């Protein structure tokens, strides 16, 4: 257990300390390197923790304050990994942004500090056992990114950040009310005090929790955390926020924060299912999921801004994952977990390439970006593969997860299948249609060459490909354990 505590300490402590350090040193030349180093050590700690859990099963730490099981440690590893690669990407990207003059000294410090703070908040959210602290960490994660979205101080950036702040703030407030109701129900069974908010205790007694109160609580939690996941109709802030901030931030927001919000939602769903013994909560999630898929897919057709388009794609994929978690059952849950992983990797890779592409052309409008294959093969092919992955082409990983989810749908809820297929199909067509002109063709006059960050994109795409072709044993085992926990 001592090992676990040490890992946890590093996992949470390093980002926090780094945030403080970068608040002062964030605009120095070596600041991005510090960022990468800290993220790397966080990742190492995450891997260590994962190995512990793999060997020994779920465990409590920090006097029941932290709880690590297969579900959240897998997300913790994913989070720290993507943060690390994003930090690598951010180094090249932000250097270019500084050359273009879009960010100044003080803002760089702020950016780096908040980046690490964001990682801290996300990891805290994942690893805490206390449902109340889960909420606090989620809010902290939102707050740390709000001012990052408006980093460029343009009118649209400020508008996007304001919308993000207000809409997510309101949503999260609903989630707090849901948490209060949850505590109310828990108090009856577990007594007062901090014990009643611990997830381990709650899942143990979920059968005894009052069903009416939990159903009511779930509605609020769904609305609250669902807003953060970006489910329609609560998604209004997402396209704006993800398209206006600096690209590394868009990558982590799309790739990581949405996952974490979904994690929170699923944890609560497990409790509600245990209490109501019905598929009620799952049905609600399925409804929201399908709605998100369809609305996002059709919205993809109308987009002109590249980052906005991919944000809608994030909404769609989160809809798929929500739908699958709502469906429940072994196959669908496995598919959902896999989907969270590969979507995260692929989407962040896409955002990396998109970031470079928009820097090369100094615009985010898709009709002004052309000839990426010739201009910068890494960016061009990276984008192409990324899009192929994200629309679910085999042999990439997303095909596997979507296939699993479809199979589960046909088996357990056949009437939803046509809707699911419709959404997937429309997204497929829309994305390919939009991306094709961007990557092919001659180099346009407004394109400037640049050095891209190689490693993150290649690493992510390689991982997505490998997982698509062959799921390693430990990963398989991991998912199965998580599925078991989510029954």
């Amino acid at each position, binding site marked *: 257990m001592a090992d676990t505590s040490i890992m946890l300490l590093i996992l949470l402590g390093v980002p926090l300390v780094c945030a403080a350090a970068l608040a002062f040193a964030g605009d120095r030349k070596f600041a991005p390197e510090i960022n990468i180093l800290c993220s790397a050590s966080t990742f190492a700690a995450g891997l260590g923790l994962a190995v512990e859990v793999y060997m020994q099963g779920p465990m409590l730490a920090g006097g029941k304050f932290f709880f690590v099981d297969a579900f959240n440690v897998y997300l913790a590893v994913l989070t720290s990994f993507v943060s690390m690669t994003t930090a690598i990407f951010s180094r090249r990207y932000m250097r270019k942004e500084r050359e273009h003059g879009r960010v100044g000294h003080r803002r760089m410090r702020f950016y780096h500090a908040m980046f690490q703070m964001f990682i801290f908040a996300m990891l805290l959210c994942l690893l805490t056992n206390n449902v*109340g602290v889960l909420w606090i960490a989620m809010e902290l994660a939102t707050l740390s990114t709000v001012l990052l979205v408006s980093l460029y101080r343009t009118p649209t950036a400020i508008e996007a950040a304001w919308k993000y702040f*207000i809409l997510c703030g309101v949503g999260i407030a609903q989630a707090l009310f849901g948490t209060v109701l949850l505590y109310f129900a828990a108090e009856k069974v577990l007594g007062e005090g901090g014990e009643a908010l611990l997830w381990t205790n709650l899942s143990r007694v979920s059968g005894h929790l009052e069903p009416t109160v939990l159903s009511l609580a779930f509605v609020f939690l769904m609305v609250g955390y669902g807003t953060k996941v970006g489910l329609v109709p609560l998604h209004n802030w997402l396209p704006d926020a993800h398209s206006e901030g600096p690209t590394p931030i868009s990558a982590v927001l799309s790739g990581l924060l949405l996952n974490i919000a979904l994690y929170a939602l699923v944890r609560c769903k497990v409790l509600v299912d245990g209490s109501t013994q019905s598929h009620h909560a799952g049905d609600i999630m399925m409804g929201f999921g399908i709605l998100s898929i369809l609305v996002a897919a059709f919205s993809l057709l109308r987009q002109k801004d590249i980052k906005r388009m991919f944000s809608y794609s994030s909404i769609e994929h989160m809809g798929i994952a929500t739908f699958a978690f709502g469906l429940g059952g072994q196959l669908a849950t496995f598919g959902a977990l896999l989907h969270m992983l590969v979507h995260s990797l692929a989407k962040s890779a896409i955002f990396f390439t998109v970031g470079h592409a928009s820097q090369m052309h100094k615009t985010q409008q898709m009709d002004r970006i052309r000839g990426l294959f010739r201009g910068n093969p890494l960016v061009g092919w990276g984008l192409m593969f990324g899009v192929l992955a994200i629309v679910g082409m085999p042999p990439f990983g997303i095909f596997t997860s979507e296939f699993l989810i479809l199979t589960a749908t046909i088996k357990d809820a056949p009437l939803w299948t046509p809707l699911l297929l419709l959404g997937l199909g429309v997204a497929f067509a829309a994305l390919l249609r939009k991306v094709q002109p961007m990557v092919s063709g001659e180099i346009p006059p407004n394109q400037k060459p640049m050095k891209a960050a190689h490693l993150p994109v290649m690493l992510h795409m390689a991982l997505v490909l490998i997982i698509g072709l062959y799921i390693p044993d430990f990963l398989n085992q991991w998912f199965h354990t998580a599925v078991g926990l989510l029954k």
Partner: protein
Amino acid sequence: MELTTVAHINSFLAALVLLTAFGMLVQKRIYGLIHLFAWQGLFLSLNTAIVGYVAGKHHLYISSLLTLSLKVILLPYILHVLIHRLKIRKEVETIVNIPMTMLIGIALVIFSYHLTAPVRELSTLITRSTLAIALATVMIGLLMMITRRHAVTQIIGFLALENGLFFAATSATYGMPLVVELGVALDILIAAFIFGIFFFHIHTTFDSLDIEQMARLREED
């Protein structure tokens, strides 16, 4: 203190909280809004202290003090300073007219009463009847955010919403565990700083705090 007397005082303070919420809903002057918000915070912290005394939960005293310092003193002060610095116009326009807003507010109160019925049946606390009022305050805060066009009023609506949530916590469960309360207070403080910074940004970029100005991000057709 006699239990029913306390229940009455509790109900009274709850009613006053609701009254201030409605007052904020129909108020057009910004300084009036801030003062009403401060009053709401005061009633809330009084209520928390009284519940803490009767139920014997001493951590509620800390919550009460926290609410007092944060919502009655610090936040209104910050808002005052902001409004003064930014030379904001002292009146706010509404999207929906006032009588209509009031009717919607009343409908929300009835709605939240129905919604919290299951909790009320199960609760054994003396404060159970005030949960409906708390939820109504949350919804009225939400209504205020929707029907106003000014950034400051949106924020005050948001803070009123948080007030309602805090009230809900004390009514349903005699307050959340202290660590949660502290965390929530911290979040609110950070949010306050952020929106302060925001106002400056908005004001510098848009030269006004009218939300309608910020409507450029939409789908292209």
